[in-house]
């Protein structure tokens, strides 16, 4: 188990010794443990601090150390409680990427992550349970959760200036369509409200068949935070 902002271990020990100590509680042989610690310290960017006493580490470095402590025993199930709480962007990203790759790269590994960062949950989790006041309100994949509150999908495109727009309005599956031209830049900005993602391919082929280039394509859809608010009736406090 790894909690965000925790100060586990003993300040007099070095980061490496501290992690080794915890690995002993799981019966990991010292040689194996030290090998894993060194490898993980390189991955998490903590190698330079391996011999620094724990009390001399910054919050981010300590959190990385805690993450290594969590992984050094090669657990089947890992509990992560707000693992990126209070971390700088880089440290948080390193942790998120490692956890995601670890759980998806191996069979039989499970991470139970609790977080208030919805983007983090969206990026890292295969299934998400929304809990409020001790009750699970919903438990599903991020996509399905968002689909629960999604009634329509919005796509925004930036393309070369386009004259013939009539086909878009009559296209099947397009609920609404609007456009705006920027003559100075010779660009058109198209907004489609679709029932689902089905017509996207047809829209793109219609544009390219006219010899126009698509400069950007944006899909606006409900976020997990929208799902949470919709279910709980309030935002994060």
């Amino acid at each position: 188990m790894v909690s965000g902002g925790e100060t586990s271990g003993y300040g007099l020990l070095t980061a490496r010794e501290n992690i080794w100590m915890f690995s002993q509680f799981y019966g990991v042989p010292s040689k194996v443990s030290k090998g894993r610690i060194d490898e993980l310290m390189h991955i998490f960017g903590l190698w330079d601090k391996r011999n620094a006493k724990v009390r001399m580490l910054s919050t981010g470095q300590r959190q990385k150390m805690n993450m290594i402590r969590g992984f050094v025993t090669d657990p089947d199930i890992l509990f992560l409680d707000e693992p990126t709480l209070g971390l700088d962007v880089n440290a948080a990203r390193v942790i998120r990427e490692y956890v995601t790759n670890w759980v998806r790269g191996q069979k039989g590994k499970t991470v139970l992550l609790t977080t208030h960062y919805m983007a983090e949950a969206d990026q890292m989790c295969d299934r998400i349970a929304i809990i409020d006041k001790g009750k699970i309100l919903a438990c599903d994949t991020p996509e399905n959760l968002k689909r629960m509150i999604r009634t329509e999908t919005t796509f925004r495109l930036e393309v070369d200036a386009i004259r013939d727009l009539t086909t878009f309005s009559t296209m099947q599956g397009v609920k609404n369509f609007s456009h705006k031209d920027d003559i100075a830049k010779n660009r058109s900005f198209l907004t489609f409200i679709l029932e689902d993602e089905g017509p996207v391919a047809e829209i793109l082929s219609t544009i390219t068949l006219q010899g126009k280039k698509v400069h950007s394509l944006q899909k606006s859809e409900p976020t997990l935070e929208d799902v949470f608010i919709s279910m709980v009736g309030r935002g994060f406090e």
Partner: protein
Amino acid sequence: MSEAKARRSDLRYRIGLNLRAVKGRSYPRIVGANREPSWIFFEAFLPLLGIAAYVFVYQFFGGQALAAITTKTTAAPWGMCGHDPCANAAAQAAAAAAVGANTNALVASVVLGGTMVAFWLNVLWSMASQLYWEKEIGNLQLYMMAPMNRMALLGGMAVGGMVMTSMRAISTLVAGVLVFGVIFQVASPLMLLAVFFATLIALYGLGMMFASLYLLWGREAWNLSALMEEPIFFSSGFYFPLGGLLRIPGWGPAIAIAGSFIPASLGLDALRQLTLGSTAFGSNFWIFDVTTELEILVGMAVLFLILARYCLAYLETLAKREGKLTSRHQ
């Protein structure tokens, strides 16, 4: 894999796991705690000051007794041997030698007691209070989640505490011997080692038991630790032979008996007999003979370890049943 083979394999795994856990948890105390050289000042030199206070008092009384023996008057031409004048020069010399021996025995008792204080303080503040402290700093939940036996955790704390404190105690002992010129006469080193280790195991067994109880009682535990410092120093005879209390009518024996429930009391009594000779103080100040005290200490060690296991199991049951590790209003 056959069932018997699987059981053996599982047993081997569990033994290996718990031995590693003991090693891991003792590491911060054996290696980490010695990283700060300040311990030499705080934990080896400063205790000498407390010891010195008692040593000077005993040496003063010894000096006074010697002065009475060597001061010649017309009524006592060979000085005073106790309440009566010495009969001759030989009696005077014998009395002076006895005073010297008793003073050395008292000073040695204080030095030994001062050394044992280090263990008692370690048991109180680094064993008994440790689980509560681990809870406060956030380590306890990690310990509770680990697959090791909880006794291995306490065992690691105890082993680490014993080794760490032994280094400090030996430093104090050596410094005490050098500074105060104490003479020890060890007739039976093996018995001495047996008593020393039985005392430590019983003492740390008591600490392991207290660790669970302290966690259960929470904040009140700190008061309990404070309460068990000076009163135990007195009732366990850290700075004087405990048997002396038995000779005080009324409250003396009651305090000596109460103090004897702390393993340090009987351990110290036996260690003093083994290092000073059982004839020191005219054999008047000992509680039991060494063999009896060793037997009681072994009994205490077993009892406290069993009780420690029981308390820990109760704590775990409470945690599983009620989702908390403390009792009452904590």
